[in-house]
């Protein structure tokens, strides 16, 4: 199974990541995805997570073809 992982704003600059495709086995957690993609860098405390374009607490079961996004607190408007 594979998942698309997106990064926005300062996270892109910080980790040099924009969009990654990650293969995973059932039962993998979001923090494990994070570790895999960032090579075990510390996840910022203020991070926001969206799964399939909906905010998520991060405590979910990932499915094949899900899209997960990591981004900092928003600053629009």
């Amino acid at each position, binding site marked *: 199974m594979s998942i698309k992982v*997106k990064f*926005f*704003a*300062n996270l892109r*600059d910080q980790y040099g990541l924009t969009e990654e495709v990650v293969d995973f086995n059932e039962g993998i957690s979001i923090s494990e995805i994070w570790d895999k993609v960032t090579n075990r860098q510390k996840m910022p405390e*203020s991070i926001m997570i*969206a799964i399939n*374009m*909906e*905010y998520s607490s991060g405590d979910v079961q990932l499915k094949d073809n899900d899209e997960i*996004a990591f*981004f*900092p*607190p*928003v*600053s*629009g*408007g």
Partner: protein
Amino acid sequence: MKIEIKTEAFDPLVEQQRYQASLDIQGKYGATAVFIGTMRDFNEGDIVKSMTLDYYPGMTEKHLQQICNTAAERWSLLDSLVIHRVGVINIGDPIVLVAVWSVHRGDAFDACRFIMEDLKAKAPFWKKEELEDGERWVEKNTSGYSKI
């Protein structure tokens, strides 16, 4: 109800006028509450030269639509319009327009402010400010209900 992301500069008054003219609510609305957010030349004590607004195509529109749906459930509204700029923004450029039409002013005011606050708190947009000596990401928005 309309949500739009603009990659080019826009005139909020022209958009408001045009959208209103397209609605079939003549004689029905008594109240229009509008908010326009505009690019300032300073922020947190520093001179800002320009700004780049990033967003999450797909999720941003979806979230704005959810905000407007929630407002329409919570208040008695005839229509609402939200336009938000992305890309490179210059001093004095409009960034966001929120316009709400209702029979009564209470609903229009409440809904307009709710949409704006929710957009500020949760809509996936990120500002990078170009300063005189470099650039920085805006860390987060503060609440419009209490001053910092």
